């Protein structure tokens, strides 16, 4: 049995401007100790997916409107608030993007660490403090006894994120969700923090969901990657497979829209044109259709579901099932994936059906 099993998760926000379809039926699994990357443009629903499984969606707008989250045999969405609270921080911990704002400015590091420990373990303050010192040491903060008494603003961004990691790992959780943990940090610090995160989760056997919009970050750290687009998982594959055989037009686009260190001359940079769809409407066809150069007629009307990729002998699997899946009617061939665009002779992306075009223009201009 897997550690985490998310099935058909649907999250919507009810706002004054209408309903926002943030997550539209997301399913994925995670084994104990496994490392999963969640990648996609900002706004595609990565954070919301994970806040939902922690049941920490902003109230009252954010609602889980469907699906199941099974963690360690427990159906999280049916637990009482008190039972859920026991899990948070203890079994599932989270690290957020901005270490500048994620720590409480008026409490000392000690107060924040100790309260985390004492929320879940019946230990004395002195014991909790000793544990806090050990944790700070573990994440590489020098003179932890002294630094404990500091306030967050007295730390640098990288140091604060280390404190966040220490806090998240304080109770040796089974699962750690790191939501863009290095996005707000200096490039030079990023690698150090990722390194630390990778090392500690491996050592502790902690499963990790690493959220990022940066494919480079997940490349070296994860065993598997989910690519999200507009609230859907559009491609999922073991990491080497995803980079070796990207099979969804969006993933292909992602890989071609950004310069690589190993950029070859014959590899063009092809930006993904257009913008993500307006999440205030559930898409009729494929959510990527308006930006896709592979699209067929059917793409405008039928939203494809995730299906195993037929990549023959090259398919890499880690489990009994085929684990490279995509949601696409017209997947790029290996050749096209390398080229970054369709190379079939005479192929043209299907034009938008009549009536749909006006809507798209309106969408592109933004709502009134």
């Amino acid at each position, binding site marked *: 049995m897997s550690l985490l099993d998310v099935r058909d998760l649907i999250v919507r926000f009810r706002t004054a401007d209408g309903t926002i379809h943030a997550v539209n039926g997301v399913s994925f699994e995670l084994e104990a100790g496994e490392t999963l990357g969640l990648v996609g*443009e*900002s706004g595609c629903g990565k954070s919301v997916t994970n806040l939902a499984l922690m049941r920490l969606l902003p109230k009252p707008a954010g609602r889980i409107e469907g699906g199941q989250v099974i963690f360690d045999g427990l159906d999280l969405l049916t637990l009482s608030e008190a039972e859920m609270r026991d899990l948070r921080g203890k079994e599932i911990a989270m690290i957020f993007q901005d270490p500048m704002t994620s720590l409480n400015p008026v409490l000392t590091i000690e107060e924040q660490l100790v309260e985390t420990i004492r929320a879940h373990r019946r230990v004395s303050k002195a014991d909790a403090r000793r544990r806090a010192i050990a944790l700070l040491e573990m994440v590489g903060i020098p003179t932890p006894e002294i630094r404990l008494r500091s306030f967050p603003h007295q730390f640098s961004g990288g140091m604060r994120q280390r404190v966040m990691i220490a806090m998240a790992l304080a109770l040796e959780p089974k699962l750690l969700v790191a939501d863009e943990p290095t996005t707000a940090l200096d490039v030079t610090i990023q690698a150090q923090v990722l390194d630390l995160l990778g090392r500690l989760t491996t050592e502790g056997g902690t499963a990790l969901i690493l959220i990022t919009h*940066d494919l480079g970050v997940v490349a070296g750290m994860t065993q598997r990657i989910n690519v999200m687009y507009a609230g859907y998982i559009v491609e999922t594959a073991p990491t080497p497979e995803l980079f070796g055989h990207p099979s969804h037009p969006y993933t292909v686009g992602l890989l071609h*829209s950004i310069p690589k260190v190993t950029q070859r001359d014959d590899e063009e940079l092809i*930006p*993904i044109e257009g913008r993500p769809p307006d999440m205030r409407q559930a898409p009729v066809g494929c959510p990527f259709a308006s930006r896709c150069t592979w699209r067929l007629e059917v793409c405008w009307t039928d939203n494809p579901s995730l299906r195993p990729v037929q990549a023959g002998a090259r398919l890499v699997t880690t489990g009994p099932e085929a684990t490279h899946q995509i949601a696409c009617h017209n997947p790029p061939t290996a050749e096209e994936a390398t080229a970054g665009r369709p190379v079939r002779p005479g192929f043209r992306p299907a034009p938008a059906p009549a009536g749909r075009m006006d809507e798209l223009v309106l969408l592109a201009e933004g709502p009134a």
Partner: protein
Amino acid sequence: MSLETPGVTAVAAAPRRAEERVSRGLWSDAFSRLLRNRPALVGLICITAFIGVAILAPVIAPYGPYEQRTGGRLEAPSAAHLFGTDLLGRDMFSRVLYGAQISLQVGVIAVLMALVMGGLIGALAGGLGGWVDSVLMRVTDVLLAIPGILLAIGIIAWLDRGMLQLMLAIAVTYVPIFARLLRGSILALRESDYVIAAGAVGASRLRLLVRHMLPNALTPLIVQATLILATAIIDIAGLGFLGLGPPDPRTPEWGTMLVDARRFLQTAPHIVFFVGGAIVVSAIGFNLLGDGLRESLDPRLKR
């Protein structure tokens, strides 16, 4: 390897929408948003009633404000006298209507005076900076240190009573608020891109101030002025209640009318209710409208 290419992110899309909004006309857009804001609409109705009554008082009022009838003193409300009569047998309904006229006149003129004086101070302080700024800001600090009504009382004591003095006294208490507000927006706008751009193409400082900064600083000023009108109306009545209102004691000024009400609370409680009600309704009106304006002029500020 980053996916955050500009133009393809949802985040980048948001400001573009805001720009389009502005281009479609800040004011007409704000107005339509105002009409959809129910509390603001209530405010607008209160104020329309208040202003309408003030202007039309001579038409609506069944009696003149000074008209005395012997015998009918401190009468309770009746068909002939909707709001009853006062100590001198004057029709309270008519006096409350005329009172709206006085409050509106004094209030509007006082707030305009405060706006001009405060605006000038704020513009000079924010525009010139340096020691001018320091001196002017200390002046506003001094004014803010004196409790508002006491400042107004002091000014009237100094200048002696009179309509103009009354307006000036009210105005001075609000000068620091407008001064700081305008100074604040000028300082913020001075850093903003388009003012820097205008400066780069060689627009003079005064031109910059008048053409670019003032129109943009106008929004908070208008919002503040509306809210201050509510407090100004309350303050005018307060001064009247202390016997420092219009010099002619017969003037149908709401606060002045309440002096009698206090003495005859037991026999004629209706005076407090009608006069007090008039003050409260107009103050609520301006407060609601001010809050509504703030929300509809500033699209980011959603409740």
